[in-house]
């Protein structure tokens, strides 16, 4: 039997990441990266007690995992495939392990931390 391609797995994670980036990240980047640091919104929004409580309930855990892990897989897939567009053809296996490995590591770390919190 022909060896099955692992592409569908990576593509699914890429697709799920793309959906999260499109439907959540524009507002999330604005809130966490601009509105709160610049003071448009109260610092209370991202205060320790509040975020810790959010990361302690299961829906919060799920949200945090989704906005960290899936965008990582999305970026890993696109960056890996862009190497071809940029004419970088050496070290394909190495880059594949590097890109997807980082996404996997980020997922694993988030998962462990969220379970422990």
């Amino acid at each position: 039997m022909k060896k099955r391609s692992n592409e569908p797995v990576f593509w699914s994670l890429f697709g799920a990441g793309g959906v999260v980036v499109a439907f959540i990240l524009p507002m999330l980047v604005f809130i966490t990266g601009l509105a709160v640091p610049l003071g448009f919104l109260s610092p209370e929004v991202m205060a320790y007690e509040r975020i810790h409580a959010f990361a302690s309930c299961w829906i919060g855990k799920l949200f945090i995992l989704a906005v960290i892990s899936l965008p990582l897989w999305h970026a890993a897939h696109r960056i890996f495939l862009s190497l071809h567009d940029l004419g970088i053809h050496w070290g394909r296996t190495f880059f594949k392990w590097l890109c997807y490995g980082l996404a996997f590591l980020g997922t694993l770390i988030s998962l462990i931390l969220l379970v422990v919190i």
Partner: protein
Amino acid sequence: MNTRKSYIRPMEGWWLKNPFYIRYMIREATSIFVGIYALVLLTGLVSLSCGEASYNNWLVAMTNPIAILFHLIALAAVIYHTITWFAVAPKVVSPLFIAGTRVPDMFIVAAQYVIAILLYLILFAMVWKV
């Protein structure tokens, strides 16, 4: 042994030769900022799990001008991603039919914008009055 030097078409900068390819490469490049932003959130999560003092350090780091500049570019990048993502969705999903007629691509694109804006508003409403 083949000693002939065959001509290989040079491909450097191929994507600079056509606006369509430039837009394609910008779309792919948005993923760099998406990836870095995810890592920024990950460092936030790590600091959160280390306790209040380290988390507050992360909050201070987020106000650094470099961080602000990064998030400005990242915001533009994710908006660009969103526009391109919604635009290709009708081409990726299998054709939708309602009462025997095919749903036009424009409807699928528009529906995504409606849902997305609704989600942004919900997210914003959750922090607005805090």
